[in-house]
């Protein structure tokens, strides 16, 4: 394993009457060489603290961090051979683009020619050729972002760390940079750890997503895994939208089971988790798995209907519970106004089941 975190915890001492805070609690994580892993979670979940411990800005209260077979727990940041892109970019305001990019190479006392060659190459990569002499305050937000990225990439680090690098950009630019970062990362095959609270960003960029909440890792998996098979209610709620429907296992088959919801039964094929007959479960039903139609098994009443062009967003009431549904099927693009009685159909093959909490 290239970079591994074993039983990492970070406890911040109490300050000014507050109690001590456990920011990161017993985290275990293994990252392969060349992989891009995203730490995803709401603010205060410990993702940035974890990243800062990997960088060496904070030292873990317990546990070990290994890089390339060596323990780096107490190694200061400047000895770790990593580089980082900061949320605020942290571009040196008194240096121009070239000097900013060359900063780390200057620390290593490389020859002028070598520095010029490497800086030139990396500026070309981030499409900033020709901007070498610009001062940071003469650059747009996107360009500053690229400088920050170039400055980190030029070091050819063992691990590239990124702390919400796109959160200060506007939506369009963010989308563009997202694909660009992924492209560069794959081209250079650079091991990366990326912190974000934006699930879309995590889904587009990552090989694997690490979802954190209140200092612990809730799930690690590919974007598809965490979306399709969330291991906890928190994840289902955090990644995408989800309806939680209470149910009871009515029968267990070979490759699936029958559950009872809203007084009716629904057969789910291909369910991995084994729940014994009679156990109470929670079904995770994504809005796009619910289709709203004139006839079907589950009758409901539309409480809110919003037409959004390429889809219709519904809140429907069924069995005393509100369920969100997204109707995207162009074949059935029929609009049911508020108050209409409708019937629901569930895409039973995609529904995921969790034990009742």
């Amino acid at each position, binding site marked *: 394993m290239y970079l591994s975190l074993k039983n990492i915890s970070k406890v911040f001492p109490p300050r000014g*009457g507050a109690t001590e805070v456990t920011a990161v609690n017993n985290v275990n994580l293994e990252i392969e060489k060349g992989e891009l892993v995203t730490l995803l979670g709401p603010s205060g979940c410990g993702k940035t603290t974890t990243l800062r411990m990997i960088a060496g800005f904070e030292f873990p209260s317990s546990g070990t961090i290994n890089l390339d077979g060596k323990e780096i727990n107490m190694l*200061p940041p400047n000895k770790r051979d990593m580089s*980082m892109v900061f949320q605020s970019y942290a571009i040196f305001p*008194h240096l121009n683009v070239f000097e900013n990019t060359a900063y780390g190479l200057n620390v*290593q006392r490389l020859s002028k020619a070598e520095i010029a060659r490497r800086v030139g190459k990396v500026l070309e990569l981030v499409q900033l050729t020709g901007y070498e002499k610009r001062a940071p305050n003469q650059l747009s937000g996107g360009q500053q972002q690229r400088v920050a990225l170039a*400055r980190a990439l030029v070091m050819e680090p063992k691990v590239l760390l990124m702390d919400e690098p796109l959160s200060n950009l506007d939506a369009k630019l963010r989308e563009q940079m997202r694909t660009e970062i992924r492209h560069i990362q794959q081209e250079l095959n650079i091991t990366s750890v990326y912190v974000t609270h934006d699930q879309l960003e995590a889904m587009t960029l990552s090989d694997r997503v690490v979802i954190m909440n209140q200092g612990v890792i809730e799930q690690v998996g590919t974007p598809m895994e965490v979306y399709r098979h969330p291991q906890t209610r928190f994840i289902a709620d955090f990644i995408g939208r989800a309806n939680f429907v209470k149910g009871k296992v009515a029968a267990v088959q070979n490759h699936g089971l029958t559950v009872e919801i809203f007084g009716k039964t629904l057969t789910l094929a291909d369910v991995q988790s084994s729940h014994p007959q009679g156990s109470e479960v929670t079904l995770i039903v994504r809005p796009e798995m619910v289709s709203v139609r004139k006839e079907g098994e589950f009758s409901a009443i539309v409480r809110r209907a919003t037409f959004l062009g390429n889809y219709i967003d519904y809140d429907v009431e069924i069995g005393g519970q509100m369920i969100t549904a997204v109707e995207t099927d162009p074949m059935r693009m029929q609009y049911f106004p508020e108050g209409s009685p409708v019937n629901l159909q569930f895409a039973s093959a995609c529904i995921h089941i969790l034990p009742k909490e």
Partner: protein
Amino acid sequence: MTTSSPPLKTSTSRLSSWIRRYREFALIARDPVLFMSLLFCGIFLFIFVILPLFRATEGGFFNKEGLFDLRYFSRYFDAYYGPVMRQVFVNTLVMGLLTATGGTILGFIFAFAVVRCKIPGKNLVHWLAMVPTVSPPFAIALSTILLFGRNGLITRKLLGIVFKPGMNDVYGMDGLVFVQIITFFSVAYLILRAMLERLNPALEEAAESLGAGRLHVFRTVILPLLIPGIAGSFLLLFVESLADLGNPLFISGNVTVLSAQIFLAVIGEYDYQKASALSLVLLIPTLLIFLVQRYYVNRRSYISVTGKPTTGVIVEKNPIIRWFFIAVAYLICATIILIYATIIYGSFSTAWGVDFTPTMRWWEQTVTRGIEAILDTTFLSALATPFAAILGMIIAFLVVRKRFSGKEALDFSSNLGGAVPGTILGIGFVMAFNKGQNVIGIIVYAILALFFVQMALTNARERIIILVIGTAAGLGLKFFNASFEDPTTINYIVGGLYLAGAILGLVRRQKTTALGAGALGAYMILANLINYAAEPIAVYSRNMERGFWSNAIFQFSDHIKVIFQPTPSLLAILLIFGGVLLVRGQKSWLRWILGTVFLAIPCAITFYDKPWAMVGSPYIILMAFIVRSLPASVRAGVAALQQIDPSIEEASNILGADAQYTFRKVTLPLILPALLAGLIFSFTRHMTSLSAIIFLVTARWRIVTASILSEWEQGGVSIAAAYSTVIIIFVLIAIGVLYLVTNKLLGNRSDIDLSVGA
């Protein structure tokens, strides 16, 4: 994050809090340079701020025999002394209240005129308002007397008033308050101007759109938002007024205030117990206000003063209001110009009030007789300036960027030295450093020795043994050295040892070790050798014709000695710190030898003679200067550092740079404007300080401000005016030079803001 109920203080929680503190320091101790800076700042503030203030206030409770005695406190309640003592106290409060009120109003008028009224010649008005802050403390009092006194240019010459006994003249409370308002209003101006500029115009527009008239908006929106600024400047002015010594000495006439009473207790009655007792009386209100200001007013501010000025300032539309403010501001500007023109002209007039024909006589006298004071003051001020500014930046860096227990105490005490009245600090300096109490020496040595073994050595056994052997050897060395005819021999021996260390470093290819040891060794040896340079210069100057050049050259020989012959106490601190760098990371057997040697030497020096008996030496004046100007530098540094995103330093760190490289290449260039501002403030404060150093001045080390006072007392009005002019010119030159340097260094960078920390 606030919790309503404090956690139970069990013994385990106390223990864990101590463990946490130890861990924090252990984390800082991983970086020796950082830890040294922290320790150095701590020791400096303890010795030169906390200790003198403690001595100054504690002295009031003990009589000459050292017995507990409340004589001077009880005088406030006794029938014989009581009325006078109480009157002085009341006078002081009245003066403070009037000055604070008047100064705040004037400051507001100036701020409003500059920010809201489109005043023509805005920059000139701003600079004129700043002039009183860079002039010597009694320049304005002096000039006011020259203009409005019994022989005043305006009162006598123009208006023809002849003063008879019983008439109300400029001397007294009215004159004093006028002078203090002019002297201090710029403080209020700066605070209120910053607030007005950052007042969001949308708020006023919102109020107006809701139908409020101008006056209503002012009353219900502007004024409430400015309350913290007004309260802040009122309190600040009150404290400044109470602390002021120069103006009351000149112009208060029969009205005595506390600061002058303290001064007279020392200079007239030579009664330090009385001075201490009165100091405590003066310290209590000033300290209270300092605390209120720091922990209450500053935290109640609605307007963030650190942010950028909001764009689009509302301009006063009503011409009557606008021109009223402009007229008052112009009037005060004219008064300021008149005051300074009077000082300059006063130094040229043959006999003020009688014969106004210009003459160069007073300047000739000032230059020949006063050159000593002028050179001493400039030299000591300049020498103290970089130390004050750098120390300020280091404290600011520690306070803003680092986590450790006692941070608040460090911040607080660094501000305290400049906040308390200078007279109190001056008395404290005299009382703390007159006999060279060995208690300080022992405490400081103990802290430094523990620091030394902790930082330089690796295990507990080594630490304890070297601590004992080193200290014993040091004390032995002290007695050995005492038997030498010439105590300077030790300098050669020690210097030689360090040079040997440097050669060792060279052989072992340890560049830093060699450099550090070489510099220390050379410095020690130069302490002796410098005499061979200084003595002939002194002799040469003696053989010259007495006059400007002979005095100047003689002073020069003194000044170079100051740089190379610090008092043993300061030298010992320097050597301990140097020693840590030399011994750290050496091989085991070398650590044993070097550790013992480099602990023994500072130990011997620490206890040699009376290392802390600094009264009479130039170093005590230097320290007083630094303590007084430190708050301005710290504030400038804190303001600058708070605006720099900590990630910028982290970015440098993770790109491979260590703390030292980062500081040099990133932090320093970014706080350079603040550093330069700190330098300007420090130098100005040094050149113009009076109250803190008046008791520390000796025949050998003269200070211009003290000379002005003595000239004045002897009736040398024109010479006093000439001295004042000299100080003003020197300060202006220094500011000009630093501006040029700033522009040169920073080029066309737009983020220079020299008003930070003001």
